[in-house]
């Protein structure tokens, strides 16, 4: 099967600065893929290389089997990009903006599809409104619509929910999920790691231009064993041998302790019993993607 996205030893240098170093990546069609990393890790540079906005210093990138430089027309037709910045052309209405975007991709007779995209993104009422008059959330919806007007099989969303309210965020994810169910490959970069955890089947983590982790979300969460325990005790003072494991004192008065594995839970309970303490409330929690992310970034 031809990968939806294939990146072979791609590097990008800006003078002495290495934005990307020998990045290798393959995303299969139909995946919901997450690209995570701190600011400056190289996520946007990688996306820009795929989209033809940036030229790689070395290596090759393909979209649906088409080289982004040698076969740029087919590669770009196969890709829809929702940019990070809220950019728009202030001269035009929503419908004009979408109609131009379809036209740039060489598509004639796109009115019905544009109507459908606007309907899905709740933009129909704003079709004849000038882009300047739209709220930030509405502008974000138009950016998503612009990425979809040419029906690309691969859709890249570069931090699409930054600064977006909860309602729009949920609506946006419902729509993107339905596109993924319909067979579109989705590549997502986000700083909201709970979104990535909930949506992405596979995740790559970038740091300083290198991929430092690449696996399924499930494996990434499992790979980093350990768990957290939140407990409230009576009297409200942990014995000294346990207090060293406290990572946080929660606002509700609970202690948060990090355990290396579930076996340590028994040791914890015994220590509490021996200290004559009574457990009022206890909750055992798996590490979430945010904790895994922090661990990986610290290790690499």
């Amino acid at each position, binding site marked *: 099967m031809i990968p939806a996205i294939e990146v072979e030893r791609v590097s990008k240098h*800006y003078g002495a600065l290495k934005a990307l170093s020998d990045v290798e990546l393959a995303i299969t069609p139909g995946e919901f893929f997450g690209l995570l990393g701190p600011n400056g890790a190289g996520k946007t540079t990688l996306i*820009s290389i795929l*989209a*033809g*906005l*940036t*030229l790689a210093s070395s290596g090759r990138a393909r979209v*649906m089997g*088409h080289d982004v430089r040698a076969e*740029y*027309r*087919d590669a*770009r*037709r196969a*890709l829809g*990009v929702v*940019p990070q*910045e809220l*950019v*728009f*052309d*202030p*001269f*035009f209405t929503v419908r*004009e903006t979408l109609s*131009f*975007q*379809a*036209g*740039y*991709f*060489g*598509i*004639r*007779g*796109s009115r019905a*599809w544009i109507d459908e995209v606007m309907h899905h993104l709740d933009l129909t009422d704003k079709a004849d409104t000038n882009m300047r008059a739209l709220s930030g959330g509405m502008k974000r919806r138009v950016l998503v619509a*612009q990425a979809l007007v*040419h*029906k690309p099989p691969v859709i890249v969303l570069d931090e699409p929910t930054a600064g977006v309210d909860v309602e729009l965020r949920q609506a946006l994810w419902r729509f993107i999920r339905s596109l993924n169910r319909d067979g579109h490959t989705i590549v997502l970069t986000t700083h909201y790691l709970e979104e990535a955890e909930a949506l992405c089947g596979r995740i790559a983590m970038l740091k300083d231009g290198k991929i430092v982790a690449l696996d399924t979300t499930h494996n990434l969460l499992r790979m980093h064993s350990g768990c957290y325990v939140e407990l409230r005790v009576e009297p409200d003072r942990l014995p000294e041998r346990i207090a060293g494991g406290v990572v946080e004192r929660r606002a509700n008065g609970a202690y948060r302790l990090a355990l290396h594995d579930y076996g340590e839970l028994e040791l914890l309970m015994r220590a509490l019993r021996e200290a004559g303490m009574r457990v009022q409330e206890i909750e055992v929690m798996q590490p979430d993607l945010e904790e895994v992310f922090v661990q990986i970034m610290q290790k690499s």
Partner: protein
Amino acid sequence: MTVGNGYAKAARETPGGAEYSRLIGFYTLFRKEWLRFWKVSVQTILAPVVTALLFLLVFSHTLRDHVEPFPGVSYSAFLVPGLAMMSVLQNAFANSSSSLMQSKMTGNIIFVLLPPLSHREFYLAYLLAAVARGLVVGAGVFVATVWFVDLEFAHPGWALAFAVAGSGIMGALGIIAGIYSDKVDELAAFQNFIILPLTFLSGVFYSIHSLPAFWQGLSHLNPIFYMIDGFRYGFFGHADVSPFTSLAIVGLSFLALSWLTLWLLKSGYKLRH
């Protein structure tokens, strides 16, 4: 999933039933650029026409009794083609340069960089929109001034050829300036220190025969002089330089600038970092 080489062969079915055609991409970009200036025509068309009228009023009132640039041609009549061509050139430059500059600054340039448009399609769309604005403004200057001055049209074909070629040159220069400039300051410097002096010192307001020999010689190094002089030949059948020489110089300048612009666009200079 390959696409044929010619436009006629390039059309194909999209998954949704609509058709792909390369020509549509180019045409859409041209149409967008046309609408961009047409929607603000008070600023992009009416304002330069009024400016040209003011120049005509002030200069012809001051100089009409003192200067006869060509035998039998009044200064006011001499001035009108010069002003029209100056407006054509300045507005062609302003169109492509400001559009690219604004798109770069606001970030919406991404919308024309993401689609599968070739550097040639990109160039032609911006260039033709610049030529179109130049010609619309030039026509506006004529419509506004024709009531005040008796004009003859000795060779309208020559006038049109120089208007199109001249606005093409300035449209290409505008693309280069728009690509190069990262700040409004840089574009303003381009406009104020290169385009404006070259147009003002090109014989818009005078015949170069009225200049001392040194300045006459220097004027011959200014390509805009040949555009204005050749354009004026279309009206009076009289010029400082043979229109064939002017057309050759203007044509070669256009080809050289087109080559440079296409090379910049193909390399992605300052657009695809």
